[in-house]
């Protein structure tokens, strides 16, 4: 999807949404899963995407905005191809999460919350990822990476950059 086009779900998606809505007493109940779908399809939830979701579910824009702004996992800004979310909560912090974040930022030349100019990597901090036994934990897109250290991250970044160039 190019950014200038009006966002549109595919036919299959629309059917999926229809089936989902039918399972609840009202369309508002389907808002959370539909927002996840929209984020998956469109990358992030721009105001246009939010308007479109409101239209699809027959809600008002504010009803959608309330939910989008409440949950931190919904993004209103575009992010890199690899979203790296470092847990900096107690267990991970004790196991070097802060140093890890610093290392990642230095290596990529960005600050926390920023995306590299080539649109490849975004680094953010998150609260407890619920995987303390593997601290420090980094969630990259939908995959947990446990016991992460600087070397592991370097290798990941190199591999990902190479794959992208190929």
């Amino acid at each position, binding site marked *: 999807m190019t950014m200038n086009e009006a966002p549109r779900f595919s036919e299959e998606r629309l059917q999926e949404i229809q089936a989902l809505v039918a399972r609840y007493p009202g369309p508002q109940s389907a808002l959370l899963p539909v927002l996840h779908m929209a984020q998956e399809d469109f990358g992030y939830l721009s105001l246009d995407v939010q308007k479109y979701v409101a239209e699809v579910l027959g809600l008002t824009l*504010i*009803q959608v905005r309330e939910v989008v702004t409440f949950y931190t996992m919904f993004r209103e800004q575009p992010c890199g191809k690899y979203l790296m979310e470092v847990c900096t909560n107690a267990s991970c912090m004790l196991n070097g999460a802060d140093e890890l974040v610093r290392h990642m930022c230095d290596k990529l030349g960005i600050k926390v919350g920023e995306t590299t100019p080539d649109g490849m990597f975004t680094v953010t901090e998150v609260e407890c990822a619920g995987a303390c036994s593997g601290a420090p934990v980094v969630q990259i897109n939908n995959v947990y990476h446990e016991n992460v250290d600087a070397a592991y991250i370097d290798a990941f970044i190199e591999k990902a950059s190479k794959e992208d160039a190929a």
Partner: protein
Amino acid sequence: MTTLFIDDKEITVEPGTSILEACRRHGIEVPYFCYHPELSVAANCRMCLVEVEGWNKPAASCCTPVSEGMKVRTRTEALKKDREMIMEYLLIHHPLDCPVCDQGGDCKLQDYAVEYGPSKGRYSEPKRAVINYDLGPFVNTCMTRCIHCTRCVRFANEIAGTGDIGVLNRGDHMTIAGIVEEALESELSGNLPDICPVGALLDKPSHDLARPWELSHHSSTCIQCPNGCDIQIESRGEQVMRIRPVEGSPEPFICDRGRYVYDSFRSPARILEPQIRQGDGFGSATWEEAFARTVELLKDKRVGILFSPYWSLEGLMSIRLMRDAVFPDAKVAFDLHRRDMRPFAFEEGFSMTTEQIESADQVVVLGCDLRQRLPLLMLRLRKRSRQGRPVTRIGAMNYRTNMSLSNDALIRPRDWHAVIARAMEQVQQLGKTAAGMDEWMASVDGRHEAGKLLADALMADTCALIVGEEIRSHEDAASLIYGLDLLMRACGHAEEGRDGRNLVPEAMNAQMLSAVFGDVRASAGELFALAQAGELDALVLVGSDPVGDGLFPSAAKAALERVPLVQVGAIEGEISRYAEVKLPAAAYVEIEGTFLNMEGRVRTANKPVKSLGEERPLWKVMMRLAMEMGSEPPVVSLEELREALYAAMPEVRDACNSVECDACLIRVGRNRDARALPRKTAEAFPLDVVSRYSMYREGMWARASELLSEAGRIHALDDVLVHPDTLAELGLKPGPLVVESFLGRHTFDIGVRDDVSPGVIYIAKRGVAGDLSDVTSARLVGCGGDS
């Protein structure tokens, strides 16, 4: 019933009541912010905590229902501590700027801070500041003071139906956000400052003008629509600062028209002293001089009297008494929206209360812009539709409602006969009929499918039929209403206790007007025609503005060009430029009086605001007029006047004397012998004309109010609207077009909208296209064309 003990006091309430509501009803003080009796329960402020014996932690009383034998404590040391902690949290980011806050002195946060707050905060970190929003001409925001109780959000969603406010973000970043363009859409927006328990949402027109403790309170009745809400008027000296709803009255909210009309009370358009025409202008006069001129104009003349229905019952009665004493042959008119003067099978007024309409199985609205005309009845229908109950609408325009309608049909006014006949056919097939129905049906040729919706709804056990202005102002209104009456009788909706026939009146006091003036009543159009034909020598207008309002503006102008006008009133309208004499009468907020609303509820106004000038209660002006004209004044005191009123309408005495005044309803008039059959008339022109009623522009008071005019500008539409198909069929394009009617040819800006029924010309801007209100049918032609 459930019995429980609150602070050892035995209390009995309905099962399912919340503890908080039980406390409120029995005068037990429990602090709370987010709860509001008219809104859904959010339970997010936690201020309302109470202890329940046997429970191991405090309970939020607003969302905990009572149970049998429950023992509740509202004042313990532990609770005091809890409340202190909650207050500390709520005040963390609060600016603590009570001295410059309009809410100060009337603020829950301030009150509870005094009771539960420490004198010094422990929070010394930076406080947040929040951006303010533009919520339209009536609401000011200071969002840093917001405590996120979400009352405003629930009000917008549940009551106003605009859904224009929401909560963004969470925790420390939480803010209330309005989507600005939509915020103005509500005709109830003035209630937001009342709803907000703190000083975050404030009344804009009175902002920074007065402190709550400087204001004196008066009670009165709003006469801006037939709903007749109880109002509390807050004034400083003689200046009205605010109008608010009255707690505990049948309607907990009031609309923006009734609330913000108050700046007209001191507008330059008020008539505050007697005036006499001098050349092109007016000069002030003494009462003696003004009456002398009046007598000159009226003595031994053929006089027509036109008055507005908005006066108090006492005022209206005095008009009748004056007429009988001085002009016993005079024709009297008061309705500017009625063309057909044959008696209606059911007269103007409601047979049902608004509560009954809210809970009826079916509601059918015929040809009425309820949201503009009766915003609070609309609010009840909105509540109904939120509960999934049906509302059917048939009419010439898809008026905005902010709710979902279960059935909706667009028709032209000339189709009404066919709609009703179609409904009759259907109910007859189901074996329901009434004497006279066959004859009625036989005199109508066509059948219109929209009648099916009507007939379907009539099958319900209880059905509220709300008949609006498109039928009431119809040239054949009496036969349409008779037809509807037959339908209602056939389906059992006309019996005592199940009567669903409601005819939306033009204004207050409809039941009294048909009872007291029924025998002398003429149509306003008839009066103007007589004046034009030289059969009247003078017109007396008591508070009416037929040039600015109603369906006869061009007839009124033509008549006033010919005969002199004596104007008695509280406020000038567009007719004032024709007046020879102006006699000031007190405004509705300046008198003690009795009113009747559309349901027949008696409303009393007993603590008036001080008069601004020399105006006198209408009855005194009328009696003095009688005296000056050489008659014995029929009554000399308010008591005598009331006796005369009670003699004419004994029910009013009963209602006024009963304790439960709200529960007494004055019945609507019925005319069992009003058998009007459809008239076969060929319309002169191919398109029907329907005029818009705008709550911000209709009526002399609203037009004199700058606040309402401002809102009216925001809600403005093109001059005239038609359905796109109507234009397409004629091969015309939107823009300036000629409207041809019996009044001649006039050019207007024509816009298109799907909301208008095809075949209808909808006059959206009465001020501009006002004169078209006189016509019922017209033709559209291109500019410059010769067709």
